[in-house]
């Protein structure tokens, strides 16, 4: 081809200039977010940072000037980081190099999540949301327990199973919420607010089974942290596995390592209550026995007095009955103590056999003054010539007081 026949021939500079202008007048390229992986990252003494942003099929040279870096407060950049970089694309004519002039950098992927977590944690801690002094005590025996979790989740079945076994006396109110996905944080916050508005729950369990960082992420959101902080009802968090700590765990009044641990922490063990009732029943019997012991002593004294006053008064039969009763009472007490560990029903039956109505059949007597039917328990209550009725098992003995 002849030199003069070709269309206009441009210089390198002209082509470069043309390309640069083409790029710089393109709206998309003048403010674009590009995501990729950093490689070949180099920081110069000048403070400018050069790197290549790449994906599987292509790469893009980038430059992050010092001023822009400082302004953007971007984290330190390292090879392998997944980022999204914002800036304008142009041509550096001197090198003939296409470049992204970076104005701002955001971490994406796991690194980004981690950073957000740390930043939110620091901010809320500074506000005092994690302070030990803010944490409220969990009520020892709640009658109504609130649960915020997904209705379909295994975590709910597990928590109900624990509550059923440990403390079936309680009532559970489920406030359902999504626990994963973009709508989860708002749903969790609403479910917590709803329980507070309803007002009956005495403690709330926030539960979600184990999963990856992304799956548990809702519990790291500020929305959830604020909802826990403003909850009037104490909150127990039971999210994920043993070693996972979410922001919700820091704000909650008590942190359990799993949903089932949270349910166990919310209630006492019903077995303890069974023991308490047994103990009280035993005390009841012991005090009654002591009481009857005092009564018996008084009866003995009255009997001795009667005998002293008139030796002809035959009380052998009564004496025999008293001895028998003493022996029986002793044996019964031994038996009760050895039965302490047995089932309540059996114990109750044995204790009932000692009830005073049956004991009276064995030799107790109730002494009453005829005039006013007062039960006599002391010699001070009677005067000479008072008429008394002594009630024994098969009838009544009338007596008149000599002295």
């Amino acid at each position: 081809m002849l030199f003069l026949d070709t269309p206009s021939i441009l210089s390198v500079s002209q082509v470069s200039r043309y390309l640069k202008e083409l790029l710089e007048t393109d709206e998309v390229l003048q403010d674009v977010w590009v995501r990729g992986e950093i490689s070949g990252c180099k920081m110069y003494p000048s403070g400018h940072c050069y790197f290549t942003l790449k994906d599987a099929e292509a790469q893009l040279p980038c430059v992050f000037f010092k001023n822009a870096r400082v302004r953007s407060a971007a984290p330190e950049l390292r090879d392998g980081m997944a980022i999204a970089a914002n800036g304008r694309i142009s041509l550096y004519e001197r090198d003939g190099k296409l470049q992204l002039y970076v104005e701002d950098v955001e971490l994406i992927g796991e690194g980004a999540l981690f950073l957000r977590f740390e930043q939110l944690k620091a901010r809320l801690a500074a506000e005092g949301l994690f302070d030990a002094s803010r944490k409220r005590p969990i009520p020892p025996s709640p009658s109504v327990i609130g649960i915020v979790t997904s209705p379909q989740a295994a975590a709910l079945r597990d928590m109900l199973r624990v509550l059923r076994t440990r403390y079936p006396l309680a009532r559970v109110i489920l406030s359902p919420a999504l626990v994963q996905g973009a709508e989860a944080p708002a749903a969790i916050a609403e479910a917590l607010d709803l329980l507070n508005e309803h007002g009956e729950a005495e403690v709330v369990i926030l539960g979600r089974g184990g999963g990856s960082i992304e799956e548990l992420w809702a519990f790291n959101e500020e929305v959830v942290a604020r909802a826990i902080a403003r909850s009037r009802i104490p909150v127990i968090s039971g999210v994920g596995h043993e070693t996972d700590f979410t922001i919700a765990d820091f704000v909650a009044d008590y942190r359990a390592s799993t949903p089932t641990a949270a349910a166990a922490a919310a209630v006492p063990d019903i077995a303890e209550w069974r023991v308490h009732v047994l103990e009280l029943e035993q005390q009841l019997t012991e005090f009654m026995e002591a009481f009857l012991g005092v009564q018996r002593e008084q009866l003995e004294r009255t009997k001795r007095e009667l005998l002293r006053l008139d030796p002809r008064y035959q009380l052998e039969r009564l004496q025999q009955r008293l001895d028998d009763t003493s022996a029986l009472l002793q044996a019964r007490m031994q038996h009760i103590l050895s039965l302490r560990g047995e089932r309540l029903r059996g114990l109750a039956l044995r204790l009932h056999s000692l009830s005073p109505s049956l004991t009276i059949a064995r030799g107790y007597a109730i002494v009453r003054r005829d005039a006013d039917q007062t039960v006599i328990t002391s010699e001070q209550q009677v005067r000479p010539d008072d008429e008394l009725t002594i009630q024994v098992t098969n009838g009544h003995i009338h007596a008149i007081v000599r002295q």
Partner: protein
Amino acid sequence: METLSFEEAFAQLEAAVAALQDGQMPLERALHYYEEGMKLAQHCSDLLEKAELRVQQLRVTVDGAPALEPFE
């Protein structure tokens, strides 16, 4: 007695035991506390044996207020 909740029955049982510990009373009153106490203890253990966890669910009604409904 049947209408007493576990917490109420337990509290009354504790009171009966405390009263009986006092010792200064006529025989009939002592008997009364003893028998009442035994009935309360039986009621408590019955409640513990028969207790079944009740589960309900909260939802928002048309006017925005929370309302209870049976679970699932």
